């Protein structure tokens, strides 16, 4: 005889509580597992696969190798207000993300100095930077050794449209972020300390002196802040210029001996770096070699002045060439006192390793260069035939930067300025003179040419070009055609099923 099934007894309260507890415990265990897996992934799983054809965000093997060799913490501070240049900011942030993922020792902080002024102030105090030039920049710091990359250095621009009047838009053509960032990291993590040797014995400015007029102690401090060892150098004996150092000749008032000039020439021929700061009314003895070997013209008998301000003797200029040393200074400018004209010799050299001379500081278009009557001190003798207009007062020269041409130390670099008082203690804080000193040292000591595998990345721009008719058509397609098509398909399916 069949029996009806007996319903199973309901679960007791204790049993239900126990099951509920088990469910909650397993959910928590699962949550813990998810957290743990993600924690481990965040710390150790840094594989990134680049699917785009141009691999725009992928680091070059050279950068990856360098980052793998970094064992010290490197702090990167992006001191940037995004609204100034959104696309550049995004490119910087995207690139630095790749750096920090390639090596967790690279730690990136962002400071928006407009929205977070307190953090900006702390940053300025911490790095003892006056930042007179209110430019966006990226700072690299490893154990106190710092290097800055300014926003203006990061892109190449195409001005042809603006100059021809076709457009008011300055187009970015390349992004040099990886080249500059890798170079900066290589610089700050390099265990060898760069040296600056101030030439001594010819009446030069003294890097150890606090005198306002003749002392260069503040200039030396700028170099020390960049972790550059500052030494004096006497070439009168058998000493050579140390091959890995930056030679600074600051306002020599006595001519260098021929043997000393030869030593400087040899140093430069071997890829040396020289900061030559001239002084009005004096000859260093290097002028002939500058003209012959480096295509640099110095007129030691003339002075540059502003025609409407000749009596003051100083020049406040914001007229600069396109060069990494001066491009961040355009807002504030430099203050120079009675500079000599220093420019590029108009010679054409066919050689592949001919010096590349760039005039970097100019007077305003109101400038004039007149010869001095040395019998009457520094008195000018203006003549109608004197050069007028934007007179060059400094050049930056590079020679042998082509790969394979100079294998030992890379390119030789020179910066020649027709003035030296502007970096003395009394004047170095004027305008952006101090920033100039720091930027010149950065450029002169830079070894970025050794990073030959990293080039600027082209920036692809495109335009969406639609006539009113086309725009109307697109609107119809996107707002009516496509959704309507889907609805019609749905109605069709529905109708077929109904019938």
């Amino acid at each position, binding site marked *: 005889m069949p029996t009806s099934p007996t319903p199973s007894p309901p679960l007791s309260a204790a049993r239900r509580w126990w099951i509920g507890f088990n469910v909650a415990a397993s959910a928590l265990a699962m949550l813990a597992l998810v957290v743990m897996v993600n924690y481990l992934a965040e710390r150790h799983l840094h594989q990134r696969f680049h699917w785009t054809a*141009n691999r725009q965000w992928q680091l070059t093997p050279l950068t990856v190798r360098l980052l793998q060799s970094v064992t010290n913490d490197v702090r990167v501070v992006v001191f940037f207000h995004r609204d100034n240049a959104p*696309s550049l900011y995004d490119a910087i942030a995207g690139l630095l993300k790749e750096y920090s993922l390639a090596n967790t020792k690279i730690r990136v902080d962002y400071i928006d100095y407009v929205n977070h002024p307190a953090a900006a102030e702390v940053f300025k105090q911490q790095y003892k930077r006056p930042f007179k030039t209110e430019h966006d920049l990226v700072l690299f710091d490893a154990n106190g050794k710092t290097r800055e990359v300014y926003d203006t250095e990061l892109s190449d621009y195409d001005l042809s449209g603006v100059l021809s009047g076709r457009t008011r838009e300055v187009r970015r053509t390349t992004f040099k972020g990886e080249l500059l960032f890798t170079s900066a990291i290589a610089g700050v993590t390099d265990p060898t300390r760069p040296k600056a040797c101030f030439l001594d014995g010819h009446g030069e400015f003294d890097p150890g002196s606090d005198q306002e007029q003749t002392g260069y102690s503040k200039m030396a401090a700028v170099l020390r802040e960049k972790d550059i060892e500052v030494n004096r150098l006497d070439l009168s004996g058998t000493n050579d210029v140390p091959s890995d150092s930056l030679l600074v000749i600051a306002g020599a008032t006595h001519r260098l001996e021929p043997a000393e000039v030869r030593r400087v020439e040899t140093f430069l021929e071997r890829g040396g770096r020289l900061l030559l700061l001239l002084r009005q009314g004096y000859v260093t003895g290097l002028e002939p070699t500058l003209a012959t070997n480096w295509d640099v013209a110095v007129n030691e008998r003339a002075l540059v002045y502003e025609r409407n301000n000749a009596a003051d003797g100083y020049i406040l200029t914001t007229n600069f060439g396109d060069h990494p040393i001066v491009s961040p200074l355009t807002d504030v400018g430099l203050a120079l006192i009675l500079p000599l004209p220093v420019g590029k010799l108009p010679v054409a050299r066919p050689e592949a390793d001919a010096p590349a001379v760039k005039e970097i500081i100019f007077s305003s278009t109101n400038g004039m260069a007149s010869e001095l009557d040395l019998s009457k001190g520094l008195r000018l003798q203006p003549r109608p035939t004197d050069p007028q207009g934007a007179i060059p007062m400094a050049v930056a020269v590079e020679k042998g930067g082509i790969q394979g041409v100079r294998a030992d130390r890379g390119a030789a670099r020179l910066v020649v300025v027709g003035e030296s008082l502007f970096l003395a203690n009394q004047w170095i804080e004027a305008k952006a003179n101090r920033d100039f000193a720091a930027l010149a040292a950065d450029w002169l000591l830079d070894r970025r040419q050794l990073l030959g595998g990293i080039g600027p990345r082209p920036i692809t721009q495109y335009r969406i070009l639609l006539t009113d008719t086309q725009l109307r058509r697109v609107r119809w397609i996107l707002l009516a055609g496509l959704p309507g098509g889907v609805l019609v398909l749905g109605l069709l399916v529905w109708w077929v099923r109904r019938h």
Partner: protein
Amino acid sequence: MRSYFTLARRELAGYFVSLTGYVIIAVVVLLLGLSFTYLLEVLNGQAVEMPVTDLFYDAFFFWLILLLATPVITMRSFALEKYSGTYETLMTTPVGELEVVLAKFTSVFVFYVVMWLPLLACLFVVRHYTQDRTALDWGALASTFLGIALVGAVYTSLGCFASVLSRSQIIAAMISFALGIALFLLSFFSFLTPPRADWQSRFFNYISMFSHMQDFVRGIVDARSLVFYLSLTVFFLFLTLKVVESQRWK
């Protein structure tokens, strides 16, 4: 496994043989159309440095579609069965709870992916008018769709979990929407605090869906993003499974 496929096919057919699925897709296509029309009007004649995929992600419509559409397509998965009384019948058949959960999730997820396919048409329309083939990179397009699929996997699994909690589709949609919004808003913490190298900033950056999605639209597939989205999907599916199992005890 056979029952899993049978169930998934039945669930998927539920979207495509009724008008509901087409209405959802039509609304999504309309929102996509609005987004692209807006972009074309704003950028017409201007020089643009971003690829087209990056442009679309920058418009807020992407997140709007994600947040609104997923509760709507997931709300019926369990709640409708409970409401119509077929849930008990389903659970008494010789089909495992895991198969039920996975089949419902699969059908919802496939519908979600199909829902996004018209985006391809929109992107090609924009590329056509840029007259530059490089404006749309195939790799970036593929990774963008991978990103959309991964974010969708999290949100559809979340929706399934919300749906299994209630008999009412409306309540399920509201729970799903609330949880989805909460997850979405967590991403904003990475903007509220200035990005630093400290652990808080790294944490908020890691859970920020904007940050993950930005990589995808740039053609970068980060293994951490895969782990993040897949682990969250598994977590919500696990919770769904536990709730389904608990029905037996009642």
